[in-house]
């Protein structure tokens, strides 16, 4: 392949992402008839398509900061982290950083963290899904074998730590009503299930230590030791019941 078309396409990319750069646009416009009118169409189209895609992933952030700030953040995201793949549904991991850099005023403190939270929720169903085990299956395991029990995360799971208070947008809690606020530094496990929808399980410090150890080693005994080290009254059975009920655990071996 020769370089002429490659150079032209590189010039297009630079000009469309940075239309305020006179040098970039001048370079791009060589050999194009009536470039000004057509250029505006493409600049607007690239921005609108990106904005529409991110609006699907970040509805709450958009509602919180308003259209003008949202558009400004979209443009910052597009210019600093342009899409690299053809599926825009998976574009936007850096949007929270763009929000942090561009949004000011009352909502600034929470907006970028809300965006991080929305990104986790949005992308969760796209992760590979491992089949989950049930509590009934766990109950079949003879007591003497529980020390050898190994577990792993299942379903579509993602850990999330809320650095600021945010409300659980677009989600519900199996053990806490339709929605509840997540408090400062509260840790939770987000689980997406085809049938049950998205569940959010707030995890206390001991629960979080237990879950982290399961993700690391898979060993029930080691995980329980980690939980008990933080809370002497750590309630393993309660935690297992919660996690199995939302399809977050898989029995690996026993």
């Amino acid at each position, binding site marked *: 392949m020769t370089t002429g078309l490659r150079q032209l396409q590189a010039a297009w990319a630079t000009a469309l992402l940075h239309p305020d750069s006179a040098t970039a646009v001048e370079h791009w416009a060589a050999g194009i008839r009536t470039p000004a009118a057509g250029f505006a169409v493409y600049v607007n*189209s690239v921005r609108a398509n990106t904005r529409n895609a991110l609006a699907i992933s970040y509805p709450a952030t958009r509602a919180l900061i308003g259209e003008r700030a949202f558009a400004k953040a979209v443009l910052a995201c597009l210019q600093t982290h342009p899409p690299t793949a053809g599926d825009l549904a998976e574009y936007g991991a850096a949007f929270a950083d763009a929000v942090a850099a561009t949004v000011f005023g009352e909502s600034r403190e929470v907006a970028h963290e809300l965006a991080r939270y929305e990104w986790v929720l949005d992308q969760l*169903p796209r992760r590979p899904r491992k089949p989950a085990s049930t509590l009934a299956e766990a109950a079949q395991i003879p007591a003497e074998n529980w020390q050898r029990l190994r577990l792993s995360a299942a379903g579509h799971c993602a850990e999330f730590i809320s650095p600021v208070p945010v409300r659980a947008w677009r989600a519900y809690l199996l053990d806490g009503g339709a929605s509840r606020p997540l408090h400062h530094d509260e840790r939770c496990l987000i689980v997406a299930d085809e049938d049950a929808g998205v569940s959010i399980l707030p995890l206390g410090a001991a629960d979080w230590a237990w879950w982290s150890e399961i993700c690391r080693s898979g060993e029930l005994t080691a995980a329980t030791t980690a939980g008990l080290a933080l809370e002497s009254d750590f309630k393993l059975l309660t935690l297992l019941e919660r996690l199995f009920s939302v399809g977050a655990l898989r029995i690996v071996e026993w």
Partner: protein
Amino acid sequence: MLRDRAAYGDFKHPIPAQAGIGLRFPHLVDIETTKPSIYGLEIHSENLFSLAPAIARRLDALRDQYWLSLHGVGLSLGSADGLDAEHLRRLVAVVDRYQPVMVSEHLCWNRAENITLPDLLPLPLTRETLGIVAANVDAAQTALRRPIAVENISAYLQYEYDEMDEAEFLSQVVRRTGCKLLVDLNNLHVNALNFGVAPQRFLNGVPAHAVAEYHLAGPSEVGGAWIDTHATPVPEPVWALYAQAVATLGAAPTIIEWDQDLPPLATLVDEAQRAQAVLLAYANAA
């Protein structure tokens, strides 16, 4: 470069000339419950790349009643850097999974230097570009093990150094790769409005045997330019062009596209039924 059709196995043109609509997910429930009287559904390929299994099962159920075709916007057939291997791998996966009756892409580019620009960007119609597009189409067809249909696009500027017109360019791509053509009548209409390009010249210039599908949609006028927004009903000039196309190139499966300001499903169904009437009239006359 000329590829024998036998190289793609036993793939044959699988569906008669019938009309359908572009499936947009806000209409999914309505389609499931009302089972509209249309023949086919077309989905953007990229929408299936990471589709939730529950939605995929619902699509499977619809395939009992409607044929399904895939229409891509992101393969970038005109990219000088070649095809994105990961994008092609995912496209192959969804084609294997859903077994669409047709797979189409646009005669455009949107990827350069590992940046993907979310738009259908125009190519200079030169011999250099022809070689690149033909190589990319060939690579796509080899990976997919079937011919793809390549669609003419609407453009909002023209290159001074074009060496051929769009019809000649596409004819050469067909000759070199054995690909099919998807003729979008609204794109011809938009280019005619913006640049005075004669649609009939295009219809007379492309090989009829390669035409596998038609698209119909409505444009919008923005700031004095006509834009292919897919946000309005199919206008009468596009219906007239469609009738000319069918008369000139023959009948082919036809899809009504609507992407912005989505109307009720019934509006799209009405337009698909009008397209079906054009196809039936052609068949009866023949």
